[in-house]
């Protein structure tokens, strides 16, 4: 009886050790993003002033664009003007554009000061515990998600193909928004580009 207990304990220890070793190899991998067409759950996050917002309260009548952004990332900063313009252009078309900062190294006060300096007037949420970044599998900045009025994920990825505004050949996010507004299927619902990795808590 005792021998059996010892062997069970040993076996359990072995399994735990193996799991820890196996897990350590991919410690910094980000959760997989939801597939296109998936309905994203409601969430609540505070803005840079600490005021809580629900996804529902922020969403326009035709949906919402969530863009993971950063203070320090030069790629994200290269898109400041384009993101501001996007928010402006789609406000009247019923699509809200919202920024989310999920970098553990950038607190709400820093994000607020940066937004003021760069003239970003759209709402920026602070995802301090990577709650929403994990849910959406966000890995880099800038990285955009377009949800329709029913929280269905229609587009995930880059804003366009180049951080250099003179080299834009494919405005993938805008194309997705235009297709959705026209009631057409989105030709390219996913598109990747390089960006800064999100510093998770």
């Amino acid at each position, binding site marked *: 009886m005792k021998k059996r207990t010892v062997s069970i304990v040993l076996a359990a220890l072995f399994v735990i050790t193996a799991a820890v070793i196996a897990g350590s190899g991919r410690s910094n991998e*980000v959760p997989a993003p939801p597939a296109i067409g998936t309905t994203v759950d409601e969430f609540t996050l505070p803005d840079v002033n600490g005021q809580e917002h629900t996804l529902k309260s922020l969403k326009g009548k035709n949906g919402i664009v969530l863009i993971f952004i950063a203070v320090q990332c030069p790629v994200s900063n290269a898109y400041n003007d384009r993101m501001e313009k996007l928010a402006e252009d789609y406000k009247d078309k019923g699509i809200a554009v919202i920024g989310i900062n999920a970098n553990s190294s950038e607190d709400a006060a820093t994000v607020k000061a940066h937004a003021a300096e760069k003239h970003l007037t759209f709402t920026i949420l602070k995802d301090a515990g990577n709650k929403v970044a994990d849910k959406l599998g966000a890995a880099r900045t800038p990285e955009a998600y377009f949800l329709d009025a029913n929280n269905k994920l229609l587009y995930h990825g*880059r804003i366009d193909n180049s951080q250099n505004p003179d080299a834009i050949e494919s405005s993938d996010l805008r194309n997705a928004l235009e297709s959705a507004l026209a009631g057409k299927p989105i030709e390219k619902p996913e598109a990747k580009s390089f*960006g800064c990795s999100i510093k998770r808590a």
Partner: protein
Amino acid sequence: MVAASNALKPMRISRLTLLLALAFLLISFTAPAQDSVRAVRRAKSTTAPAMPTNVEPIDTAGLKDLISKPKDKPLLVNFWATFCDPCRDEFPDLVKVDKDFRPKSIAFVTVSLDDMTDIKTTVPQFLAQMKATMPAYLLNVSDPEPAINAVDPKWQGELPATFLYNAKGEIVFKAFGRVNTDALREAIERLAKN
């Protein structure tokens, strides 16, 4: 209140003096030590040959070829950019890995995601500063997506990213964001044993 603050004043001054004295002592002890470290570094850098850092442009087809062609040893690839803070932070560690394992155990190349206009300026300048001698490429594409997917469909393009391929061309280790150098070294050593 006034009386209390006056009473505290002499004590503040004496504390400040004590702190200054301590700081002076610390500086006088540590400064020579730092100088000697610098002297050793200087000596080392002058003995090492000054390697000109040449950065080659590479397109998606070239990148695919690089990672999928038959290899006689494992290949380590680091994707980085001069504009990426964690990339620059981890670079000295990667240069050490390079010195310890190449060319005996692995091949190692770096791929910069900087703009083509930086290929003769900031990119080679940074590599020279790091004393990095591994072959250096800069991805020259208008659409980065095919390159990202050619490397790893699960990669979203976040930087830095590090991949270790075995001789068969299979990814045996990868890191998105700053690499854990101990884990990377272990993975290289494991491959060397097989």
